[in-house]
């Protein structure tokens, strides 16, 4: 069992394994997203308040969920890389950051489009969840900016790891902000006591979308980390053999 993780941490092993996993993740993600979109847009019942407008939930909630998960992946990977000095972990953190930023942007954008008819405004500065999600976007930017500013890869890895972990404090604040403070945003509907408070026909497409987005994020992350690994290990033998198999004329 430990040998599996040991092998996983080796870049060439990861490179090959990820290549095999990516198509499956894309396929699963696509299938779930198609199910969720079709079921959510056309088959889910109409909401009392917002009629069909609520269907934005099927992209907004998954995007928001991934935006926070991506940050946790980034912070945990960075921490593992910093504490246990795993090169691959740092590559994962580096790959997760731009993806997380995109999903955060999507969450904010779709949320804003949804908010306009529902609350009457594109943005509400006083709202804790909106503000902390925006804050998380800035944290992503800071992380990527710090990485870009440091030339030495190893140093950039470690410095940005410290930053990622310090910023991780924000994540519970976002999730619990709607409980702690009064907010325009509705409270949690899925992960709350007493089970989900939403009609099953509305719920299943949403779960499908969330799971689908997770698979897509996984595929994208694996793809980006593969590229990172290739770049970082460019001087090693296994990369040379990969690009120019032994015996091939130069």
């Amino acid at each position, binding site marked *: 069992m430990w040998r599996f993780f040991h092998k996983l941490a080796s870049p060439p092993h990861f490179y090959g394994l990820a290549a095999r996993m990516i198509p499956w993740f894309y396929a699963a993600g696509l299938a779930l997203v198609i199910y969720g979109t079709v079921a959510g847009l056309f088959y889910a019942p109409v909401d009392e308040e917002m009629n069909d407008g609520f269907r934005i939930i099927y992209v907004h909630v998954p995007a928001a969920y991934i935006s926070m998960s991506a940050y946790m992946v980034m912070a945990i990977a960075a921490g593992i890389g910093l504490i246990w000095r795993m090169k691959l972990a740092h590559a994962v953190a580096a790959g997760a950051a731009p993806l997380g930023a995109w999903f955060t942007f999507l969450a904010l954008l779709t949320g804003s489009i949804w908010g306009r008819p529902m609350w009457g405004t594109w943005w509400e500065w006083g709202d804790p969840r909106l*503000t902390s999600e925006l*804050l998380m976007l*800035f944290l992503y930017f800071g992380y990527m*900016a*710090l990485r870009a*500013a440091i030339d030495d890869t190893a*140093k950039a890895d470690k*410095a940005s790891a410290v930053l990622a972990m*310090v910023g991780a404090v924000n994540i519970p604040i976002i999730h619990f902000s709607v409980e702690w403070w009064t907010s325009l945003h509705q409270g949690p509907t899925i992960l709350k006591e007493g089970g989900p408070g939403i009609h099953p026909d509305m719920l299943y497409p949403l779960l499908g979308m969330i799971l689908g987005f997770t698979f897509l994020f996984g595929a994208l992350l694996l793809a980006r980390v593969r590229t990172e690994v290739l770049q970082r290990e460019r001087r090693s033998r296994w990369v040379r053999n990969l690009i120019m198999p032994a015996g091939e004329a130069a």
Partner: protein
Amino acid sequence: MSGQEKQVPGLLGGFGAIIRRDLLLAWKRPGDVLNPLFFFAMVASLFPLAVGPSPEQLMLNGPGVVWVAALLATLLSLNSLFLSDFEDGSLDQIILSPQPLPLLGLGKAAAHWLLSGLPLVLVSPLIAMTYRMPGDIIGVMMLSLALGTISLSLLGAIGAALTVGLNRGNALLSLLILPLAMPILIFGARTVSLAAAGDPVAAGIYFLAAYCMLALTLAPFATAAALKISNE
């Protein structure tokens, strides 16, 4: 050999030494302390110049303006937190010294607050009065600023440690610190506004104090880690 060994200062000795050193250095270069203060005053005066000096607007915006100005002035002074140490090589000495680095990081942050946060808190009533803030509110404002600037010094030390020696370190430092500073700003300014409206302020003050405690306990370790990483 004289036979008399020099005692290595203990924890408190090291902590005190690093604060004393920064205070002494600042004494010799008063500009380091005064410039951010002037900046604070000037930023605070930008708003009425731009938005118009009507008393209602001043009173409405006062808490927010004071807080934003204090935040910007603190960011300005954070740039040089480790800069002079880095340039003359004493940063290496600090990292290598026998006292625990987090303690020394805490000392640097404490010295920074004494030289930037505390003066801001003391000068703020003057600014507040130009914004026609009533006297009883000023106490709340100063308390919130004190708690907030302490947190800023602590968190800012992390950012300064991460960016010391980098080329465009200044802008990057602000980018890194601002997300962490936003909750402080939100609660600080809101609390003062609440006080102006006559509402209870305990919740806001508690939040600021809690944030301050969190920063006090965790930030020095992050600062120490960042210093070691930046200085390899």
